[in-house]
């Protein structure tokens, strides 16, 4: 049964990835799919910036602009940032805690395929009558009035991919609680694992409100519901609340893993243990907790009244405190360290000022009275791109460079990596810094063009030029990936030489069982401790023996495909007679696959001790 070191044809490789339940391969699937959607969202961003380069531009129409703008936001948040975060978590977290796999390998695969089919479904809207056009927040007053099926694609696509995310969150919670190696206490877990843990808890509690909101929207648009229709007693504000009860924690779902990635990078390339580890853990948990208390700061201008606005304003400002703790801890980690400016490290260093700007404008937005001025202007656009790009995208790029050798066994080229960084860094500030001032000068967001003579020309042109810099950086990154894949040299366990955590103690890429023997963890930065004592490998916690592995399965793919078909049918059930039957067939496919999953026993298989020993010998020789 073991698939160790066997040469395979293309068909076999594809089948392997369709059926895999290995977290390392699922990480690669997330990386490829998330990377693809990142390019798509980037393309949409370029269209937006080209349209806004000069006043009265007619590069695209107003209606198409609405679609591009909506899909840019939706794609970047749900289909690019989220899966790329999951790629990092899957690639690293099980190994960081000394586990052989996640708690639910089958559900891990199911989570990926649900996200994937949801994303594909959402993007099919481009070819089937028009994309959603009510903004990524899809406020009910706008989306109920949208004439095409675009919003329905949004509702059903996000519903499917949202289930996938929820499953992923539960999986990582249980993995981190139950699967840690002996000695890996909570307060010895690497920061990225801690961030994943808190993030997963946020996912668990933040996604159900979105699910409910999407159900309401689906009912209203497709099945005659009246949740948001004021004529029949409905209330559009309910959507706003549900969306932001999800939407604000979502910001922390994205940025906490980013903080985790940077914490690893700062410690590694400063060759020092992370400064203030326990305060970092505390700050992460506190941010996660406060993240649920602040959703209405997106709704200051709705008219909730001064008391509600004041409470949410104060709660929002309070988040700056744990975030500030983190910023200072990173600075003190570098202080007195012997710093190496590798590609991941320069992203990390650049992240600090960039993210602090986003944080400062965040506190400005949190001031409810002042927010009436900033609301719906480019100031807000600048603010959230500073936190999402300056925080999350920088972290994903840094993490991709940092863990690329662990995922693929080859180092990305450092020179090209630095070219990417400088293009992206300069482009980012060029694009978004000026938007603060455009916003303060009164330029509204989400409007497809502007008139000459209002003072917006120069700022918008600078912003567009900056976007081209970022695009160029992305092209260099892609070239880097191709060159590395073709020509790169195989690397050993610890290619950065200063790895501190367990993932650097296993071969690159890790064998399918991760650890031949489950390691004994003797402190924070477990691998660093062993290295400092002059040891080459980890201290084992068990004798060498047979290793139990989960079976691959095609069922996650089939379950997700069924929902995809069902969504397709129900979306068209008002237009065509085949709609409802197709929808029912889709649901039957999903339920049938779940039924088979329930009745077929799945005990997994064992890799025998001899095979493990042989594989380890080969790994050591490489």
């Amino acid at each position, binding site marked *: 049964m073991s698939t160790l070191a066997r040469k395979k044809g293309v068909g076999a490789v594809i089948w392997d990835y369709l059926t895999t339940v290995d977290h390392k391969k699922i990480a690669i699937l997330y990386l490829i799919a998330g990377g693809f959607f990142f390019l798509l969202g980037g393309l949409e961003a370029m269209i937006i910036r080209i349209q806004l380069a000069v006043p009265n531009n007619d590069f695209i129409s107003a209606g198409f602009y609405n679609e591009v703008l909506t899909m840019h936001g939706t794609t970047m948040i749900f289909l690019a940032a989220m899966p790329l975060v999951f790629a990092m978590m899957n690639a690293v977290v099980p190994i960081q805690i000394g586990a052989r796999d996640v708690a639910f390998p089958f559900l891990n695969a199911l989570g990926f395929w649900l996200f994937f089919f949801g994303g594909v479904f959402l993007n099919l809207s481009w070819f089937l009558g028009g994309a959603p056009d009510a903004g990524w927040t899809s406020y009910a007053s706008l989306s109920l009035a949208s004439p095409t099926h675009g919003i329905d694609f949004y509702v059903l696509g996000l519903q499917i991919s949202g289930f996938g995310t929820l499953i992923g969150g539960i*999986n990582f919670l249980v993995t981190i609680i139950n699967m840690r190696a002996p000695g890996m206490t909570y307060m010895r877990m690497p920061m990225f694992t801690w961030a994943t843990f808190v993030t997963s808890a946020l996912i668990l509690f933040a996604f159900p409100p979105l699910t409910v909101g999407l159900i309401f929207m689906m009912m209203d648009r497709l099945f005659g519901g009246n949740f948001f229709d004021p004529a029949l007693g409905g209330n559009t504000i309910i959507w706003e609340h549900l969306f932001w009860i999800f939407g604000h924690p979502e910001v922390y779902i994205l940025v906490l893993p980013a903080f985790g990635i940077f914490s690893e990078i700062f410690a590694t390339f400063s060759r020092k243990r992370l400064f203030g580890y326990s305060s970092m853990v505390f700050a992460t948990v506190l941010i996660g907790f406060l993240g649920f208390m602040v959703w209405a700061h997106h709704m200051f201008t709705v008219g909730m009244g001064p008391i509600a606005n004041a409470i949410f304003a104060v709660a929002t400002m309070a988040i700056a405190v744990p975030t500030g703790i983190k910023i200072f801890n990173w600075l003190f980690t570098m202080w007195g360290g012997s710093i190496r400016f590798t590609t991941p490290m320069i992203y990390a260093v650049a992240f600090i000022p960039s993210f602090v700007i986003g944080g400062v404008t965040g506190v400005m937005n949190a001031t409810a009275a002042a927010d009436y001025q900033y609301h719906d202007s480019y100031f807000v656009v600048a603010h959230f791109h500073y936190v999402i790009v300056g925080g999350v995208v920088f972290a994903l790029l840094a993490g991709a460079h940092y863990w690329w050798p662990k995922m693929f066994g080859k180092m990305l080229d450092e020179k090209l990596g630095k070219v990417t960084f400088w293009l992206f860094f300069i482009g980012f500030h060029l694009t978004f810094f000026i938007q603060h001032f455009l916003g303060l000068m009164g330029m509204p967001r989400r409007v497809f063009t502007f008139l000459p003579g209002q003072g917006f020309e120069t700022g918008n042109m600078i912003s567009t030029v900056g976007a081209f810099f970022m695009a160029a950086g992305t092209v260099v990154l892609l070239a880097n990936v191709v060159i590395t894949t073709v020509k790169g040299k195989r690397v050993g366990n610890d290619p950065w030489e200063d790895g501190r955590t367990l993932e650097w103690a296993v071969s690159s890429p890790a064998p399918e069982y991760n650890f031949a023997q489950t390691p004994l963890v003797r402190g924070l930065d477990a691998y660093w401790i062993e290295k400092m004592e002059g040891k080459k490998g980890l201290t084992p916690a068990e004798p060498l023996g047979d290793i139990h592995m989960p079976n691959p399965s095609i069922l996650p793919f089939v379950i997700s495909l069924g929902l995809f078909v069902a969504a397709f049918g129900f979306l068209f059930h008002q237009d065509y007679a085949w709609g409802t039957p197709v929808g029912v067939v889709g649901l039957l496919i999903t339920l049938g696959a779940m039924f088979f999953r329930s009745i077929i026993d799945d005990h997994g298989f064992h890799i025998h001790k001899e095979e493990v020993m042989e594989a380890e010998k080969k790994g050591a020789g490489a």
Partner: protein
Amino acid sequence: MHVEEKLTAETFPAEPEKATLEGKNKFLGFWFFLGGETVLFASLFATYLALKDSVAGGPSAKELFQMPIVFLATMLLLTSSLTSVYAMHHMRNFDFKKMQLWLGITVFLGAAFLALEIYEFTEYVHEGFKFSTSAFSSAFYTLVGTHGGHVAFGLLWILTLMIRNAKRGLNLYNAPKFYVASLYWHFIDVVWVFIFTVVYLMGMVG
């Protein structure tokens, strides 16, 4: 302990649902899932409370709800929760036949509850209270219907487990499956207690 071990009443562990790592993972993961479900129902309840008086000229809660049928449904579901406790008690004692019997009674009571709910909904529709009548009707049917959907799924789930394992009895592979199914059933019951209070009692009195 290992999944494939052959066990007797003497060697069967006290908590078979948590005796293996797979079982422990299922147990914990399912509790987290129920945490997410709680938030889901909380969102549905909040929306219902916001819209319960928006009848838009259609029937109101006071005009619709009848105590006898709702009370009967409540008793059926509460009792089914109790019988599933008995089933789990026998599972821990490695008494497969009695477990199957009590699970069967649970399924029967659950099915009776579901039949009553379907009857109730068709009555409302006859009285002109359709899903699209008002914001109140949409919120009512979505909240109570989501619960009813959970009941239906739970019935199919428990039945599948009963039939699948009918011939081979209990082991450490299927014990966690029975256990989490019963957890799910309790959760459905707890949600109904809130529906009974917030929707029906408050609807009739308030």
